[in-house]
């Protein structure tokens, strides 16, 4: 009787290495980074990631592979959230005010953007909201304004990670949000027309 020989697929080995790298990484790793440190091609790394994603997924594993903030990272399965909440605090996410969220939205869509520009859109000063977001590391300084020299801000990879975005393209189109100018204009006209006619 012929002995059964277990031939290991070389991608299995790469998948284990990639898994190990994701465990020790403190931030999402891009395919490019993974290919560099494993000394493999990007195609093979992608294949390996596919293997890992099949194993580490919701309902099957306590650890889940996710594509977030332009890279790949491991996180806890959602079903473990309650226990996780008892173990760790989440100061970044907790207590984001309306002002902070609006400021974050402006920076996410228009960044790099300066405080005066943010204030112009929101109609109120954005200083404390910006300071709070910097402290949470959701935004960071990104150079200075060409004209006024005001510090400009942009969102960080942590922002994408916290909000579960795989990249900037994951944000909805700004044009699709809120009412458009025509609608508001129509309302003003409407009110005026009812009397003026």
């Amino acid at each position, binding site marked *: 009787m012929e002995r059964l020989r277990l031939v290991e697929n070389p991608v299995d080995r790469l998948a284990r290495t990639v898994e190990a790298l994701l465990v020790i990484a*403190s931030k999402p790793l891009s395919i490019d980074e993974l290919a560099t440190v494993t000394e493999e091609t990007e195609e093979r790394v992608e294949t390996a990631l596919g293997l890992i994603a099949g194993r580490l997924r919701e309902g099957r594993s306590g650890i889940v592979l996710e594509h977030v903030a332009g890279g790949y*990272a491991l996180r806890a399965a959602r079903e473990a959230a309650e226990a996780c909440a008892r173990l760790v605090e989440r100061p*970044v996410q907790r207590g984001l005010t309306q002002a902070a969220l*609006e400021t974050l939205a402006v920076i996410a869509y228009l960044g790099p953007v300066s405080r005066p520009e943010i204030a112009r859109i929101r109609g109120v000063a954005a200083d404390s909201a910006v300071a709070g977001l910097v402290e949470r590391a959701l935004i960071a300084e990104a150079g200075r304004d060409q004209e006024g020299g005001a510090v400009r801000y942009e969102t960080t990879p942590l922002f994408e990670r916290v909000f579960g975005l795989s990249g900037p393209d994951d944000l*909805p189109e700004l044009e699709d949000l809120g009412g*458009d*100018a025509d609608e508001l204009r129509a309302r*003003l006209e409407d009110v*005026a027309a009812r009397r*003026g006619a």
Partner: protein
Amino acid sequence: MALAVRELPLDLDAFEGPFDLLLTLVLREELELRDVDIAEIVVAFLERLADRDELDLDACGEFLVLASALLELKARGLFPDEDLDLEGLDPEEAAEELAERLAAYRRFRAAAGWLEERLKAESDRYFRLGPAPLSPTAERPLAQQEPAQLVSVLRALAAEPPEPSLGHLVLSYPPLSRFLERFRTLLRSRGRFAFDNEVDRLPRVDQVVAFLALLELRKRNEAQIAQAGPFEPITVWNASAS
């Protein structure tokens, strides 16, 4: 019956009539907005609101939009130098610009709402933040200690330290007379000698005392001294012999 904002009766200094007429006149530029006290309009609305039992949120929202539109138009009128010159705009365009601004803000407010929803939806996603923990440092617990030993150690530390010895700092000078005697003898026997040769092998302090003795001899006019230049050999000879 719903509270109709457009029918809100106003009794202002510059205008008397319903709110929508005011708006029409302003948009047609038949009424100067700078003459209109917007605070009075707000007060009138709040008074009307207070007369009712229930808060009409729709009316409040509509009023807020209209009042803020008026306020922005007025504010722009007060700053004619603003980069975007509204002087040149007809009311149509001004209203257009205003509506555009308000709409832009509404879009960002909606984006903030979207982010808030997203945050809620992602609230059960936990991941590690920051660097991976460093390898733990080994704990080295102290063995059981005797309190008496601590006392004895402290006592030793509290004791007055011994007075340090200054013995090595004391300089012993040879007596000046020794060199006076010696140089006089030399002068008597040889009549002349080289100072450097005589003190060459002596310790530094002795050399200094020897030099003082030489000066003393010169002072008493027992010897003559000559030196060709700084650091040159010093020659001494008998004053009476020359």
